[in-house]
Each structure stands twice: as structure tokens, then as C-alpha cells.
């Protein structure tokens, strides 16, 4: 992992769906059939766009817990409302 440089794109910005698919897929699901490639690439591109939004969120310092199974917040607005 190189030292970071402010002038270089982040790894997330540098993510290239085609390069990623051709590198990773053979080790996970096998190289996609040619008929699948276009659809898989389109979905990787969409996922990348979503990941950029997610990583742009500045997390609170105390939100480091990993929410593996989501549980709803048990707020009851009629009992806890501000006056």
C-alpha cells in the first residue's frame, strides 16, 4: 500500500469495473461468460457509484460498531418528543 498523496486519486476513485472484474472474478466466481460481461460490468459501475456516496459520509467517531444485523432504533416519538 503506497503512502498517500493528495494529488493522486483515491483507490475508490481509481476503481475500474473492467479491470476489477477481470482480476477478481476468476478467483471468486470464475471469468464471466462473454454473454454476461456487459451486464456484470454495468452492475459493478452502479455499485461503484453507490460506494462513492457511502464513503463520502463522514462517520461519527463513536459509530465504529459493525451493524452486522440491523436492529431498528426503538424510539417512541410520542413519549420522547421535544416540547
Amino acid at each position, binding site marked *: 500500500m503506497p503512502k498517500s498523496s493528495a494529488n493522486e486519486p483515491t483507490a475508490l476513485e481509481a476503481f475500474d469495473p473492467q479491470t*476489477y*472484474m477481470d482480476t*477478481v*472474478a476468476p478467483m*471468486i*466466481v*470464475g471469468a*464471466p*461468460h462473454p454473454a*454476461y460481461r456487459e*451486464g*456484470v460490468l*454495468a*452492475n*459493478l459501475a*452502479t*455499485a461503484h*457509484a*453507490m*460506494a462513492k*456516496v*457511502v*464513503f*463520502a*459520509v463522514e*462517520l*461519527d467517531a463513536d*459509530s*465504529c*460498531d*459493525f*451493524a*452486522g*444485523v*440491523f*436492529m*431498528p*432504533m*426503538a*424510539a*417512541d*416519538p*410520542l413519549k*420522547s*418528543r*421535544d416540547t
Partner: protein
Amino acid sequence: MSDSDGDTSGLDIASAVAAKQLSAQEAVATCLDRIEALNPRVNAFTAVHKDRALARAQAVDQQVQSGQQLPLAGVPFAVKNLFDIEDQTTLAGSKINQQNAVAAADALMIQRIEAAGGVLVGALNMGEFAYDFTGENQHYGDCRNPWNLAHMTGGSSSGSGAALASGMVPLTLGSDTNGSIRVPSALCGTYGLKPTYGRLPRTGSYPFCDSLDHVGPMARSVAELAAAYNVMQGFDATDHVCVSRQPDLVDVQSIDGKTLRIGVLQGYFAPQEFDEATQVVADCAKALEAMGVAVDDCELDLAEAGRSAAFLITNIEGASLHYEKILQRADDFDPDTRDRFIAGSLLPAAWYARAQRVRRQYAEEAAELFRRFDVLLAPATPIRAPLRGQKTMLMGGSEVNVRANLGYFTQPISCIGLPVVCAPVMQSQFGTPQTAQAVSVSAATPSMGVQIIAAPWREDLCFKVASLLADASITRSEVAPVSTQD
């Protein structure tokens, strides 16, 4: 009681059966006739269980004769085909599942509705493995919007919306991971409830994405929706996310609507290009304000991040569930779901972990907003029902995928498990479409939807606001006049 138009409410059927003015067998026979007449056009049902339904109806009649009180006596209902039906194979919209063993028992939600007097009549079409917002299915044929058969129903609970809108049944069950109850509710013009995550047990339903999956009822009125929801509640330890709570039975009369504070979601939920969708919400807000309810604008700053987190979590958890099938039987998937599951299999763990952390922070933001508001309003879909086969729609000046973006407004809400009643608003209520896009792709179906959203466990508030809007005729559901002829 005649129901040749299919518009008799389930509660009217239950009242008539309880009063012995109508037998459950007559109600079910009428329903089965209507399904036989209309389903070839609409393609909402993938299986009709006539013998089972008639036997069950006979049992209900005997229960009524013996003096049992059944809130849904003789009410025919049908379920998305991801709910287990005893001795039937649970398809979940797929070809692959055809080879699975038959279910040993009914899904718990079917058991509970039948215990209340309901009569299961069949299984409903859906998008493959519930990964769908369109209602299109390569294996079982597209489900068609009863308002215009050339248009999408929305999905993935496509048959659940279409069976209601065509008057084939008065009650259906669906599932909602990112909007799969709400999108077809909006596009078919029906009511749908996505309850709080963890409220209704998913026992005996085929999963898609464990940390986002919900099950819920759909109906043509608020009262029917509430009646179904009331009998569906109750803890079940078999579903590991089901929360142990006593049923919170809906009683809208006990809530004073004038004490409610309504927030109209802006920002992410009010893009100018979808002015028809935002107008629907504005009209609902205006009507509530006229009733003396406090209404104000508000925002969820992390909504877009929540939507993005939900997309990644769904893609990765869904792909994990189907990983072996992708390796062994990729060609047996619908290409649209296959390519998404392959992509999801490849995504970095860091993206998933980050998405879950963002989700937690977003839930905290929403909890804070519910200190100021009791109920939030948002559109259900960006546009009315697209044409079947339509692959793209305009968003932000770009052509984007319809399948992924019909859930643009629903996905951020289910991401954090909030309860939502999706209520239909018909064309006459929101006037002529204003945008060229809306005219070109959506004018041929009449309905859109409003999401009525509350804090976790406050489904009652969603129902209260839905009742206020229905009583004022701002929202309503109608049976579409489906022709049995070409």
C-alpha cells in the same frame, strides 16, 4: 351479495359471512371465477389452489355456524409465491426453485390469516428472487398492470398489486426489501404496509436479503390493510430478527389527528424533475393542513447515502444467498438478476461494512427527526408505471436503469426499517402530468403513491394519517376495468 366487479371489500365479505348472509364457499367460488376470467390477461397468479380453497371455505362456514368469531371470515387472499404453501414448491419467481422439495407447512403469515377466517386461493407472480422493481419475469411471464396491460405493475410483489387492482382478491401478501410492496402498490393503485423491520415474522418465506427483508399485507382500503395487519402480528422465535413485542393492534379512532406533526421530506425526496411525484405529496400535505394537522418541510441529509448503502447491502447479501446457484446454474437465472448477483459476489467486504456503518448513522439521524415529527411524507415512485420492456428512464439528465430506480424513493426508508403505509393517489386527484417525460412514459396508468412513514413500531401513526387522507378522498384505491377480451 354479488361481486361480479370484484370491488367488494374483504371486510364486507367477512361481515356478510359472519351474519350468515353469505357463505365463505360462495365468496370463494365468486373469487375463483373472477381469477379464471381475468388471470389470462393480467398474469397475476402462478398457481390457483381451488380444491384447498373450497375445502377451507367449507371449514370456515362450519366454524361460523358453530359460533366462532372470525375477523376475516371467508375473505379470499393470495400470496406472493415466495411464501411457503404446504405441499407446494416455493418458487420465489425462479426457474431454479422448481426442483426444490415441496413445503412442509404454510408460512406463518398464511397460518395466521387463515386462523382469522381467511381463505388462501393461490400463489402470485413476482420478480425473480424478489430482486426486481418492474414486475417482469422471464420464466412465468410479465405481470401486467390492470389499468393498462402494456405497462409494468412494479415489483417485486407484482402479482400482489395486480390481483388487488383487478379485483381478483381483496387481500394479498407481499414482501419488501427495498420497496417491493410499495412500488407495486403505487403503480397498481393499492394500499400496502411495509411494517417495522422485525415486526412481522418472515417464517416460511423465501429470503432475499436478511438484514432488509420484510413481509406485509396489501389491500384496497386502509381498514382492510389494518385488519390483516392486526391478525398477522405476534412474536415468532423462528425468525431471528423478529422482535418480542405484544401485538400493537391498530385503532385509528384512539389517535387525535390534530395532535400529529407531519414532516414533508424535501431534498433527496423532492427532485424537480419528478414534479408529478412531488405534487402528489404536496397535495396530501395540503389536505392534512386543511384538517388542522401541523405540517412542515424537513430533510433527511443521509437519505442518498442510505439508499446507496441499501443498494450495496442488498447486492452483497443477495449474491451471498445465491452464490452456489450462480456457480452451478447461471444460465437458469433471469439475465437481469444473474448479472446483478455475479457483480454482488465480487464486491469488496469493505464496501459492505462501510454501508452497514453508514446505515447505523443514518438511522440515528432519522430517530432525531422523529423527535420533531410523528409522520413523514414522501413519494413512492418517481414516475407512473413505465411500459413493459422499458429499460431506462430519465434521471438527473441521464438515462438510468428502470429496474434499479423505480425504488429511488422507497429504498432509503426500508434501509433503516421504518414502518410505511403506501397509499394510492389516482390521476383525478393530481391532475394532468406536467413533464414531457411523465407524459411519454407514464400517462397510460392513473396511479402514483405517497409513503406515510413513522418511527419504528409506530405503524398506528401511519394508519392514522392514511385514514385521514382516505376519509378526505385524497387517496383511494379502485378496481381497474380489465376487459376479458382483446
